[in-house]
């Protein structure tokens, strides 16, 4: 009994000693990399994402990000630091206020308008379709009546075309 109690106590002490130290090590976010950040940060003088920017300012931004990575900051912390220093325009995702809100609203509005347009026009197209079929060919023009001679010539041409295919 005494041995069992001592074992439990030792296990608790071990868990107490290792636990807090071990948890942050497992929960630590992955180390930020320049590759991972480059497409989420803008070159603020060239107005393109950093991963496709080639300018002295872009090189300087890459250097700044490398310095922040070296300080041990996470990806989110680096983005927050850049936003604090240079403003929200430094991030590739446009801010969701002011005129920039249009970047989010316009595509939604266009999509809704297109769906509405389709919903309004589809019934009309479906109503027209049977009428066109009744008229004959897709264009709606009725076929002319063939004379017996023309019909014979057409049959002959079709037969020749069939033979040519074989």
């Amino acid at each position, binding site marked *: 009994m005494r041995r069992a109690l001592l074992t439990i106590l030792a296990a608790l002490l071990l868990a107490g000693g290792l636990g807090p130290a071990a948890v942050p090590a497992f929960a630590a976010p992955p180390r930020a990399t320049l590759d991972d950040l480059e497409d989420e940060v803008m070159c*603020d*003088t060239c107005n393109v994402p950093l991963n496709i920017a080639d*300018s*002295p*300012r872009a*090189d*300087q*931004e890459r*250097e*700044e990000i490398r*310095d922040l990575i070296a300080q041990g900051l996470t990806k989110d912390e680096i983005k927050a630091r850049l936003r604090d*220093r*240079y*403003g929200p325009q430094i991030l590739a995702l446009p801010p969701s206020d002011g*005129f920039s809100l*249009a970047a989010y609203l*316009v595509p939604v*509005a*266009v999509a809704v*308008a297109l769906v*509405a*347009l389709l919903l*309004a*026009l589809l019934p009309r197209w479906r109503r027209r379709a049977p009428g066109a079929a009744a008229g004959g060919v897709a264009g709606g023009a009725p076929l002319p009546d063939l004379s017996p001679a023309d019909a014979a010539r057409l049959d002959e041409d079709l037969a020749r075309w069939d033979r040519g295919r074989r």
Partner: protein
Amino acid sequence: MKRNGVPIVAAVLALALVALLVYGVVARRDDTSLDDQVKRGARPPAPGLGVALPALEGPGRQRLADLKGRVVVLNFWASWCGPCQREAPALERAQKRLERSGGTVVGVTYKDYPKRSREFVRRYGVSYPTLQDAKLELAPKFGTNKLPETFVLDRRGRVVAISRGEVSPAFLDRAIARADRAEDAA
């Protein structure tokens, strides 16, 4: 007769899109109103006098309004800008000259990594105060979106000369003299 509202809605949406595009283009156009006034010989009040920018070295913020009563050569620059490096000696000479009459050059960094800005200041022996405009709180008010650009302000905080591009010693001499003379101008 029953009328279908779809074409009207589509037209309204199309017009709204065109209006949005036009606004986007117009909003991004260079603002030349300050240049036009200076070209006409007017001395418009400098914009953004109350904007407080952080100093590059040390704590604290400074506003152009704090410099009223002194001739100011306001220079927007960045360490990554080649012409800014070439014009640095001319601005430092202007600072030496202005110091004697109580004036000053004020450098304002534009989208620049402070570590590199400080290196620039050391390399070119910049002795005048330098402020940081990383968030572009001041530069757009002067219509600045390219570098370098220089504005000369008289003692009343009015713009008397503008140089968009690399500044020349001759421009600085003329502009500072004009700012000194601007005292009596309307």
